[in-house]
């Protein structure tokens, strides 16, 4: 499965669940924007490694909202402690999706450790995440999207031909927070 196919399914599911979606830095956010921009999407433009953390913070702040973060293998390897914190918090409203292509896809496809011995689903389980799933086909992705915890999706190497996101950081944040934290009527 190509990554953009997985992102297309994730976006469709997020839309039907009314979920807030955090997109990882680089091509994953660009592909997310290309398959369908929505104000519920936060596109991470910097801070590599922190998509799972931003998603967790959102989910903890908004326990009644569904939150999904789209992360990558290289980024998760940079912030493995996040898996332990996610396990520790064990909130019901959060799903971390790791798109695992075994490489740093935005920087020239240099291989990551998951292309050889490392298994991020096993790492997530070892960190204490109670619900960990692995999907390799579109139908498996579809059936796993309602869960919590961690979902590892195996995808092919390669980026879709999509442009950069034509939004400023302020525009991304303004649109997103109008949904995630609208000003209360009293203030």
């Amino acid at each position, binding site marked *: 499965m190509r990554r953009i196919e997985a992102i297309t399914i994730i976006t469709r599911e997020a839309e039907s669940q009314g979920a807030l979606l*955090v997109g990882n830095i680089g091509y994953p956010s660009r592909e997310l924007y290309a398959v369908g921009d929505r104000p519920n999407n*936060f596109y*991470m*433009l*910097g*801070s*590599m*490694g*922190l*998509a*799972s*953390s*931003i*998603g*967790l*913070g*959102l*989910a*903890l*702040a*908004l326990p009644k*909202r569904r939150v999904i973060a789209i992360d990558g293998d290289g980024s998760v390897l940079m*912030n493995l*402690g*996040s898996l*332990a*914190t996610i396990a*520790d*918090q064990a909130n019901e409203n959060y799903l971390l999706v790791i798109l695992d292509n075994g490489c740093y896809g935005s920087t020239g496809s240099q291989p990551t450790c998951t292309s050889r011995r490392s298994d991020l689903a096993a790492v997530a389980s070892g960190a204490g995440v109670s619900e960990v799933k692995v999907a390799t086909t579109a139908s498996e992705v579809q059936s796993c999207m309602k869960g919590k915890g961690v979902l590892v999706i195996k995808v092919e190497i390669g980026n879709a031909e999509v442009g950069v996101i034509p939004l400023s*950081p*302020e525009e*991304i*944040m303004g649109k*997103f*927070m109008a949904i*995630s*934290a609208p000003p209360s009527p009293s203030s």
Partner: protein
Amino acid sequence: MKEMSPSEAVYNGMKGAGIDFVVSVPCVNLQELIHLVDLDPKIGHVPVTREEEGVGIAAGAYMGGKRAALLMQNSGLGNSINALASLNGLYKIPLLMIISHRGGEGETIAGQVPMGRLTPKLLDVMDIPRFSPSPEEAEEIVARAWELAHGGRTPTAVLLDIEFWRSLR
């Protein structure tokens, strides 16, 4: 009047500012403050594995409408710089950083000295406003540091050195 500990002064400042979400990496000098936060049902507390992770979680919490603070030792500032610049700086996300500032007068651990010396300079070069209150000033300054963070949509830092934690009001 009952004596207030330095930790209570900081905690009262956080409460006055309406802080309702805290991420923390411990320092021996933060133990009483972390305990006070843990006991407070109105503050969500997330112990994190690394300070940079805490910056990310606090950013997400802010995006969900929370007033977030990060409690850490100054060594953690070094672990957080990219996130403070390319997440908080880029998207203009406020964050109150309550920092145990080690490595100065009274320090017994040599390893604390290099980052201790660099900490104020690192904050200055990042244009992050910093405060170093006495225990008497702490409650007011902590609240003001949050107001500046919120109003300026920036991280701000309250540096609390070894001497700070030893003194009583």
